[in-house]
């Protein structure tokens, strides 16, 4: 039995070797995958290098600033850049579409700026030639060309009857043909496997890496299991080909875009700009950290006076302006984070609608599994924004603390009186060393696996459904 399956599979390979079309398809597919792995890898390591370089430059610049008033450093600000995770070289995900740097400063949460796509030629409007795209969209198409005639060919030539008479059961035949098709798919995916292995030497965690390649294999299995029954149950090569190709158009090109349109029409996500107005409205109620006499600060003033048991702010052992700055930054950040959280939630809700279309289209499922495992999905982008915000808050508050403790209120208030007074209202440059190094840490592998569960379930469900259909119908070939 299993021997027969192998013979049938080997025979199919022999046919491919003889047929110019099939041979060409295998060669083209293999070189496309290889080229995409190589190209994406080179360009990504360039990008990663530049971002690392700019990150360390930004940190050096900050630490090299002279003696200053701490509040000046809050407005001098800091830049953080998002690094690319190792598997990002195989699936850059949304990297090119999102800003890759955030300017951190006091009283503001800036958006990520400088998306790579804005410097692009515009030629990749359908998609860039990344390994992910080649494997997700182009490989299935090539599998169709390779496999549309596996059974119909035998039928048209009349050899199907012959095989039947010789005692080759339909399921054996299908298993053999399926094995041939999937082994061809495996051959096509070898450059991707090599890419994954290289990423592992670059530090990709083992479990997500293995799941990454495994999910692509399941995806290819799904396509083998789509092409095969269409070939088995259509009358002619032509029908089999047109049928598979129509299905490919639907699953790989149409449904993903319908899903994307649907998600954005169903859930309206106001952009950052629009949210900013709502934020501003709330912030006005909180009061401005630059304005110590604002009504919002009177309670703070009263409690401080009581705490230190003094009559006026001038007698406080700390600089009241610094305390106000600290307090108002904390209040303001709370509001900013509330709104940021809401916006991220809206984007996630949109993405979820999109992701649920994965029950229909294996292409959406693999895309999600792949991005999630590679840590280049929306969740990881949001994580970057959160980490950047934490870095912002930490350094701003550290500076506000210096502001409160490093000078008196009198020194601070008189800083524009004269150059000497200005000098008095500064702290030593040694303090700038408090800036911690920033490097984006994507979700750890356990969380990534957990997040990819739905997509993996979709893939397995689709595969299971196809196999049971095949087993059910296969008896009646």
């Amino acid at each position, binding site marked *: 039995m299993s021997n027969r399956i192998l013979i049938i599979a080997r025979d199919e390979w022999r046919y491919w070797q003889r047929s110019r*079309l099939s041979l060409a*398809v295998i060669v083209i597919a293999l070189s496309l995958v290889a080229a995409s792995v190589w190209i994406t890898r080179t*360009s990504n390591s360039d990008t990663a290098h530049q971002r690392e370089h*700019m990150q360390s430059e930004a940190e050096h*610049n900050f630490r090299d600033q*002279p003696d200053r008033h701490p509040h*000046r450093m809050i*407005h001098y*600000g800091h*830049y953080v850049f998002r690094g690319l995770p190792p598997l990002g070289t195989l699936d850059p995900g*949304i990297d090119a*579409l999102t*800003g890759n*740097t955030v*300017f951190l400063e006091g009283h503001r949460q800036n*958006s*990520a*700026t*400088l998306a790579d*796509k*804005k*410097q*692009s*030629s*515009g*030629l*990749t*409007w*359908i998609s*860039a*030639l990344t390994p992910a795209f080649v494997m997700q969209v182009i490989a299935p198409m090539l599998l169709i060309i390779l496999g*549309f005639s596996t059974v119909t060919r035998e039928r048209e030539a009349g050899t199907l009857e012959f095989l039947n008479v010789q005692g080759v059961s339909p399921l054996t035949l299908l298993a053999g043909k399926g094995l041939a098709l999937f082994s061809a798919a495996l051959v096509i995916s070898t450059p991707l496997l090599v890419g994954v292995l290289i990423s592992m030497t670059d530090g990709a965690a083992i479990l997500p890496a293995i799941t990454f390649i495994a999910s692509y294999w399941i995806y290819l299995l799904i396509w083998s299991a789509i092409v095969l029954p269409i070939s088995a149950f259509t009358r002619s*090569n*032509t029908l089999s*080909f*047109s049928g598979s*190709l129509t299905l490919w*158009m639907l699953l790989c090109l*149409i449904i*993903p*875009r*319908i899903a994307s*349109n649907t998600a954005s029409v169903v859930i309206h*996500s*106001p*952009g*950052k*700009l*629009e949210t*900013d*107005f709502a934020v501003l409205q709330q912030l006005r109620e909180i009061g401005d950290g630059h304005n110590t006499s604002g009504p919002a600060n009177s309670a703070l003033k009263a409690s401080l006076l009581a705490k230190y048991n003094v009559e006026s702010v001038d007698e406080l052992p700390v600089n009241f302006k610094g305390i106000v700055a600290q307090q108002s930054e904390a209040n303001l950040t709370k509001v900013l984070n509330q709104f940021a959280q809401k916006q991220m939630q809206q*984007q996630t809700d*949109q*993405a979820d609608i*999109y992701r649920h279309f994965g029950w229909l289209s294996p292409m959406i499922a693999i*895309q999600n599994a792949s991005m999630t495992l590679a840590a280049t999905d*929306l969740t990881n982008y949001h994580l970057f924004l959160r980490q950047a915000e934490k870095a912002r808050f930490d350094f701003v508050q550290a500076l506000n603390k210096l502001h409160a403790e490093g000078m008196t209120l009198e020194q601070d208030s008189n800083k*524009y*009186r004269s150059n000497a007074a*200005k000098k008095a209202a500064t702290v030593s440059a040694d303090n700038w060393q408090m800036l911690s190094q920033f490097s984006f840490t994507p979700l750890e592998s356990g969380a990534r696996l957990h997040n990819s569960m739905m997509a993996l379930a979709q893939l397995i469900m689709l595969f299971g459904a196809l196999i049971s259909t095949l087993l059910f119908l296969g008896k009646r070939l």
Partner: protein
Amino acid sequence: MSWADIRREVLFLIRRKSVVALLVIATLLSVFAVWTGSVEVAQQRATIERLIEADKLDRSAVSKQYNDYGYIAYYTFHLTYAPPSPLAFAALGVRDVYPWKHRIRMLALEGQIHESDTQNPELALAGKIDFTFVVAVFAPLLLLLLLHDLRASERAAGRYAFLMVTRKHRYNLWPLRTGIMVALLWLALVLPFIVGAVVNGVSAGLTLLVAVVVAAYLLGWAALCYWISRVNATAPVLASCILGVWLLTSFIIPSAGNVFIKDYYHGPQGGAVLMTQREAVNAAWDLPHETTMTAFLKNHPEWTGKTETSSLFEWKWYYAFQQVGDEKALPLAQAYQQTAQDRYQAAGWVALLSPATLLQRQLTRWAETDATAAWQYNDRVRAFHAELRHFYYPLLFGNADYDEAALKKRPEFDLDKKADR
């Protein structure tokens, strides 16, 4: 060729289930694309409406809160925006990547203009169906399915020789059949578009132009299918060849072109622009005021003699160093922009080898949703920022007393004023 011939062929074609099915798919896709495109564009317009309202409220609140030109300039943001054109519904273009709205204030512009307030990146990655995509990417595939076995199917059915013998004229059969098929597909795609164009207020001329270009594009692909279908091979082999051409011209050539262009045109990193500007702006705090003012006067000689400062902090000095910071970063910013433009321009040559890209570039150009339109908007924002500065300079450098009425003359962002390019 007579009406009878045409009628016969039309009836023959629409009796075939697969043809009808594909035409229905084409119509549905086109309707969906036009519909969601229109919704998208309407959402963008509504967003702008809301922003304009919120912006007005915000500005009046700031004007009430402060009574000093310096503070007002510091805290007042001005909304700038580029509304979608009437045709945008059919070609959404890059508006999900390039910003089309900014809030701008008197501070150094380089720190503001690179901000992006874009839509959901995960959806942007998936891409959207718009009319352009349906025509440029799907239509060739539909044509392929409709036309690749034009002759092969007749050969397989054993009717080929018979048909060849009975035709009255050599154009009567295959060219006629192809022509009718293209016409039917064209109608299926273009009719929903025309409805959308009327609803969105696209001018008749432009609508017609788009319809004609779509027809030309379809005819081009049909010619290829027709030409390939003459080869005596089985239908799937022919279809694979057409599919190969489609894959090559729509994906591989553009992607490969992109790689070469990216390698060939190098420019400064965006991060370098931002950091240069920040260094310039921040270093100014520690420099003698004269240094900043001398640099400022180089490009603003009209304020000579009015740049004296009497205290360590003065707003005119503050805004002068913001501007000087921008001017220091300007060469880098220009080089950054130039790189983007060079790349886009070079892509125009690659597009000659990729009909789909060519069509997309043309439609997004007409719809003003391409990178060029985004840059024009950027230039408009720069021009507005300059107007704003030149409004405040007399008030700041002239040491004018605060008068709220003066703010009435403050420039408003006017989207119709096109920037020079």
